[in-house]
């Protein structure tokens, strides 16, 4: 009973920790895709090297039509690095000129608004700034910061914008770097003449991002088409890291399980030396004794396994719905673009893998006690008290 409980608890804790870390990873990946990378992005080939205004996409309509062929939600952006200044302070920023309707469909920017409106009122040169920016520059709704940018011709230009809304990306890095203005306002300021710097698209499933990329690449020669993992290599690294962590964590728990099983089954064999001796004395072959101890171990694992899996499934599902509130540590999490409430998640395949790993572990753990059992000499074993 103790062994079964220990095994079930081990399985539960492993799956719970995996569910929790997969929840964190999933939240990070989704947040990054939703707010930053989308599934695919198209840029001028030199854009990645140097985010200069001149590296633009000349025919965004062609790109959009290619994206729409794949039934992707698309949006275009004019992007320029510049300075934002209030009467108090000035900061380096990235200005994103967007089409509010398209942007809403791709990144859901409107969902992050905490004050004011999402370009809904008609105002001249409206701008959205983050809570952090508002705090740093002492800005509020209707404030008029000045943004200084370099045009396509290399001229420096300064324009006043009116704060119409304040957003909070729950990501310190983004909050400190981004402001949003209207595409149609930024275009004449920079002299873009309908050109854009970035086209982003989102489909049904992030797993299909590479397929979208490949399809777009063939239709858009001469442009840089990247999946989200290429746009933000840290996502791929994060994913690989998560898989490695899962493997390491699983190995550690399985190693502990192996030693637990060896210890328990060895005790069971030593306690039953006499019984095993009698079985061999009256004619049970060594192979059968070996199989008997192995099967006994597997049966223990097979009893513990569904219990552990079931409790883990219930815990992960329940916490996946209600979430684990880590708002106490949310400042730290926000720096990494993670939300303060973690929703543990674990694919069905993980339950299957862990289940199989436990059975294999039980079999490995049972080998030594089984060998010990068949090495008993019946003549000595039957006299053990």
């Amino acid at each position, binding site marked *: 009973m103790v062994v079964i409980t220990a095994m079930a608890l081990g399985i539960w804790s492993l799956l719970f920790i995996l569910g929790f870390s997969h929840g964190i990873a999933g939240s990070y990946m989704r947040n990054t895709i939703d707010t930053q990378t989308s599934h695919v992005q198209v840029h001028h080939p030199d854009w990645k090297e140097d985010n200069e205004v001149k590296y633009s996409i000349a025919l965004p309509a062609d790109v959009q039509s290619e994206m729409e062929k794949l039934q992707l939600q698309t949006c275009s952006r004019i992007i320029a690095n510049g300075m934002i200044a209030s009467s108090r302070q000035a900061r380096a920023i990235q200005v994103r000129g967007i089409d509010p309707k398209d942007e809403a469909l791709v990144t859901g920017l409107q969902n992050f608004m905490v004050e004011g409106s999402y370009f809904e009122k008609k105002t001249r040169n409206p701008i959205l700034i983050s809570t952090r920016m508002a705090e740093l520059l002492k800005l509020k709704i209707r404030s008029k910061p000045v943004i200084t940018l370099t045009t396509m011709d290399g001229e420096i230009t300064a324009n006043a914008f009116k704060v119409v809304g304040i957003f909070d990306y729950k990501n310190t890095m983004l909050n400190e770097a981004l402001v949003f203005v209207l595409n149609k306002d930024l275009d004449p300021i920079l002299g873009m003449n309908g050109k854009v710097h970035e086209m982003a698209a989102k489909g049904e499933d992030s797993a299909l991002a590479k397929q979208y990329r490949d399809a777009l690449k063939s239709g858009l020669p001469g442009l840089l088409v990247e999946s989200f993992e290429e746009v933000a290599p840290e996502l791929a690294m994060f994913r690989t890291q998560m898989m490695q962590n899962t493997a390491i964590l699983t190995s550690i728990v399985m190693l502990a399980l192996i030693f637990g099983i060896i210890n328990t089954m060895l005790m069971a064999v030593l306690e039953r030396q006499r019984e095993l001796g009698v*079985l061999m004395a009256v*004619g049970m*072959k060594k192979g*059968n004794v070996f199989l008997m101890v192995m099967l006994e171990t597997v049966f223990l694992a097979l009893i513990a396994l569904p219990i552990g899996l079931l409790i883990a499934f219930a815990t992960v599902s329940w916490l996946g719905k209600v979430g684990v509130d880590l708002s106490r540590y949310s400042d730290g999490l926000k720096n990494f673009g993670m939300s303060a409430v973690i929703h543990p998640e674990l694919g069905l395949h993980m339950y299957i893998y862990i289940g199989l790993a436990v059975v294999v572990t039980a079999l490995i753990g049972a080998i030594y006690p089984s060998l010990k059992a068949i090495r008993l000499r019946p003549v000595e074993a*039957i006299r053990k008290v």
Partner: protein
Amino acid sequence: MSVVIETKALEKIYSESKFPVHALRGVDLQVHKGEFTAIVGPSGSGKTTLLNIIGGLDRPTKGRISVGGVDIAHLSDNELIEFRQKNIGFVFQSYNLIPVLTAKENVEFIMLLQNRSKEERIRRTESLLNRVGLGDRMDNRPGEMSGGQQQRVAVARALASSPQFILADEPTANLDSKTAGSLLDMMLEMNREEGTTFVFSTHDSRVIRRARRVITLVDGLIDSDEIREQ
């Protein structure tokens, strides 16, 4: 009568300790089918060693041991296990029944190892347990039975595999005199009526009194071999 057990110049030396122990120093012995033989002698005389070697649980250092014409000293471990399973029935001093199995299962288990059919196993188990007077205790586990009853189950188990002979190592040592007497009566009856061969090692005068042949071992050698007419 055919020879079931034959030993020639059988020697056993235990060399595990610093001073080798000569447990058997050249035992020549023949046991015939249908005998009811007691091997007696003081402690350390080699009774249990002889029984272990005859039973294929231990191997001699020198000499020859054949059971039913087979030289068992040269069988591999697994061949020896199979040989024991088919040819030798064991009754131990401490009964040594499997505690988690019922009386019926303890007896049936041996036949399961022999791959006998289920019908045959059930029929023979019931017949044997009835024969040893435990027809009404078939579903009891060893812990629910007295010592005498457990030893009767052990006898039924020993007989279950239809062995050439039964080896009993001090079978009455843990029983009170009434129970021991009744167990001996039962074994004698089996010997008389069915010709079952029994070989005992014992200190018990009640067993010695009823044995038809008494072999006395002293210091690893046969001191006397008395065959009685009964």
